């Protein structure tokens, strides 16, 4: 099958964040099928030396939760008297700002520059599916590890592995409070760890696996919460917040825990807080025996038909249409079940479906703010030296990286993102970008901002877009049109032709065809 220009544009837009200069020609030359196959195997695509070096230069990306906690957490601020020194704690908090800053930088730079575009789209998808919020306490220390260790390695792997990795990660255990989930009456259940906490158990079924109509009851939620009692994290030998001890432990016990933490990077299972009784969960009897109960529950959830359907629907909604055809979702669900939850196989079924390849569907999905802003920068062909302006516009548009507070993550539908304000803001960004007003090529500021400064970031972005001096060359309109495959409606084409030359590029990136993918 030959690859039309329209198909090339479609898969570049849908599997990734849209074309950079030359991308569409490369896809056409390679053929759509082969290009998709390659994207499904990202390790086969080499990263540029610049990008590799830049990522290697970010120490936060390889920081384990345990190391981060030990170095920057409250326990590290203890004075010789064993009490937390508030001044020292403040200092450490400022020092630790590089962690979320590098998380955001790595995410945006990869989205703009990595040739493994599907991998980047999937990191966006799966992170939102298993969302945690960078602004919730310790999660600011763990955000890089969560992205690098729990999400990224599994985005094209088995769903069960992804589920297991998120379930064991301190960032998730903290975000949805399971680290405190304890069986009353057990020896470790005291202080901050007194009772059952259902929060994670509920979202694990409602959002991560079965879906809200997946056929579970309040009793199943309680059973799952009991199964997950004792799943938490540790630091400095304890399992309290920030590595504070819950109770003095015998030295042998401490050594055992320390070993476990070193192995897992943060996760620990506390027998002392676990409910060892038998449970009935989704009709299965789970023998009370410790950590393995949780693995049983995750097995049941990962391969449940409701999970197959829920995940397939969400993937189809992300890559195909806000309301995907039931036939496509059915086919994907069958593949999910037959393959034991192999994400690559499910995506293959989607990308080969009639609906996905039907030209009538091209350009019908309203881009999320992330897709919109990243695709605009990609289309100009610039590398992303300074990521700050991009964070600014994403904050304005309501989709700053890692900043979704609720566990359902950012949505990907037109309902959620198309509104009057969004249009004027996107156009404002397009105009500033095309005029060379965004300092994307400046040295990034060396002081990372505190996490909860979104208002300031958005304000700065607004000022930059209107008042900043021109910092770089204006975007060449003819080159841009070529990059985008000359994909404009007659009306857009006429408006571009009629406009002053310096406005033309911004009409392309601010025009209706570029708002959709």
């Amino acid at each position, binding site marked *: 099958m030959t690859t039309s220009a329209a198909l090339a544009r479609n898969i570049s837009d849908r599997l990734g964040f849209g074309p950079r200069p030359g991308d569409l020609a490369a896809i056409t030359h390679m053929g759509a099928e082969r290009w998709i196959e390659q994207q499904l195997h990202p390790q086969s695509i080499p990263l540029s030396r610049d990008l590799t070096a830049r990522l290697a230069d970010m120490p936060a990306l390889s920081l384990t939760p345990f190391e981060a906690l030990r170095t920057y957490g409250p326990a590290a601020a203890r004075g010789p008297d064993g009490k937390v020194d508030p001044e020292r704690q403040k200092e450490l908090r400022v020092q630790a700002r590089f962690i979320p800053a590098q998380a955001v930088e790595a995410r945006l730079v990869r989205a703009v520059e990595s040739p493994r575009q599907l991998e980047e789209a999937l990191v966006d998808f799966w992170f939102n599916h298993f969302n945690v919020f960078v602004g919730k306490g310790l999660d600011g220390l763990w955000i890089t590890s969560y992205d690098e260790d729990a999400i990224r390695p599994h985005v094209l792997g088995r769903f069960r592995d992804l589920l297991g990795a998120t379930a064991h990660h301190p960032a998730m255990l903290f975000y949805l409070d399971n680290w405190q989930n304890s069986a009353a009456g057990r020896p470790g259940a005291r202080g901050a760890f007194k009772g059952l906490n259902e929060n994670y158990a509920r979202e694990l079924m409602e959002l991560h696996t079965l879906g809200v109509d997946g056929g579970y009851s309040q009793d199943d939620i309680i059973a799952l919460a009991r199964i997950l009692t004792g799943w938490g994290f540790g630091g400095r030998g304890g399992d309290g917040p920030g590595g504070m001890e819950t109770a003095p432990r015998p030295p042998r016990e401490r050594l055992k825990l320390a070993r476990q933490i070193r192995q897992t990077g943060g996760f620990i299972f506390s027998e002392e807080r676990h409910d060892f009784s038998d449970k009935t969960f989704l009709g299965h009897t789970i023998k009370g025996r410790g950590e393995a109960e949780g693995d049983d529950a995750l097995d049941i959830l990962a391969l449940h038909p409701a999970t197959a359907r829920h995940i397939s629907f969400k993937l189809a909604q992300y890559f195909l249409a806000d309301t995907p055809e039931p036939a496509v979702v059915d086919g994907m669900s069958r593949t999910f079940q037959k393959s034991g939850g192999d994400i690559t196989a499910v995506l293959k079924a989607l990308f080969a479906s009639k609906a996905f390849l039907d030209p009538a569907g091209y350009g019908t999905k309203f881009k999320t703010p992330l897709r919109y802003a990243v695709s605009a920068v990609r289309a100009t062909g610039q590398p992303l030296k300074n990521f700050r302006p991009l964070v600014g516009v994403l904050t304005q548009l*309501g989709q700053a990286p890692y900043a979704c507070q609720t566990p359902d993550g950012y949505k990907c539908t037109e309902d959620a993102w*198309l509104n*009057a304000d969004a249009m004027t803001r996107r156009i404002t960004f397009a105009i500033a970008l095309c005029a060379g007003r965004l300092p994307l090529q400046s040295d990034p500021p060396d002081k990372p901002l505190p996490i909860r400064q979104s208002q300031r970031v958005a304000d700065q972005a607004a000022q930059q877009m209107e008042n900043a001096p021109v910092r770089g060359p204006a975007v060449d309109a003819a080159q841009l049109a070529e990059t985008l495959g000359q994909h404009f409606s007659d009306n857009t084409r006429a408006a571009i032709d009629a406009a002053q030359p310096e406005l033309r590029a911004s009409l392309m990136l601010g025009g209706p065809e570029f708002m959709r993918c």
Partner: protein
Amino acid sequence: MHAINRRDVLALGAAGLCAGLVKLGPAAWAATGAANKRLVVVFLRGAVDGLNIVVPHGEEAYYLARPTIAIPRPGSEMGAIDLDGHFGLHPALSALKPFWDERSLAFVQASGSPDITRSHFDAQDYMESGTPGRKTTADGWMNRLLTQLPGPHAPTSALSFGPTLPRIMAGPASIANVPLGRAATAQLPLDRPLINAAFDKLYASNDSLSRAYQEGIASHKKVMTDLQTEMMEADNGAPSAIGFAQDTEHLARLITQNPAVELAFFALGGWDTHVNQGAAEGQLAQRLKPLGEGLAGLAKGLGPSYRDTVILVVSEFGRTVHENGNRGTDHGHGNVMWVMGGPVSGGKVYGAWPGLAGEDLYEGRDLPITTDFRSVVKSILAAHLNLNTDQAEAVLPGAPAATGDITALIGT
């Protein structure tokens, strides 16, 4: 109804294109705001602990259930502010006490959504769609409400504060977004006539993007004009408010400048206090204080317009009666609604109070719901916004009518 609104908005948009929109001043909009009745909704996302807001200090069971997080009885140090001998107000909300005293602030205790979900997302969804238990409802009840209010509507008839359009405002009628904080008054490149004209050509038709664009331009101009005019007069060198107080100050200005504003919506987060909730001081108190002050500032800023404004504060569900092992509270059921404004028959805690004794609790743990939140909204729709039964049914299909003392919530 939708078609009429759409046409009005488009007509205004088209007029805007010709006039470059810059010339439209407040006077151009005044004619469209015949209604002069307003509803402001504040959504506390995350399920606020209503039992620590309107505190049943007259009940021993309250203090037994909450050994470390209860608000002390009135008269004690950091105690509740007594309201009626049985209920008291959280001390962090002292800014609202004058409105209680002048009888323009009321509460509805033990209210909420009849759906039993304890999921934030479902519960918020239901409260915003206005159809508990039905997930397929595509639009939000405030959007449906706008279509039921007498037109014609301006692009700024309904204002949503914040970066994304919330579920409650989603739907066919056009809603203006007002950015939070200082960004509300930032100049855009699109304010320049040449750039504006070029983009107008791209978005001149009737598809969803063009409509969003046209509405965005029109409401942006209007908001900018109103905020700037008023600000120069009002600021007088005073430092500007921050956070919620700044946004309510903006809303007060937008309403006093522009009678077309009929509906406004805010959402505030951070109420999901599972851990270390605090009592008279602490996490919850720190969030309640700016909320109370922001609402008081709004009431003051509205001036005479407060007479025609109802402010409704809601949250998706309440929290457990008993505190949990982490000195916090978990997801519960019944909660308290706050109703404030000139038309409110205030100075009273409405609703049937079920009590907190063990046998009275929902599923043995939560405050039961004796008033469906929709019946409170319905009484506002009828008595304040003058909707007839059919119109109220279109806004909240299948919702029960107000009963008991709720029928007298809005004075006539």
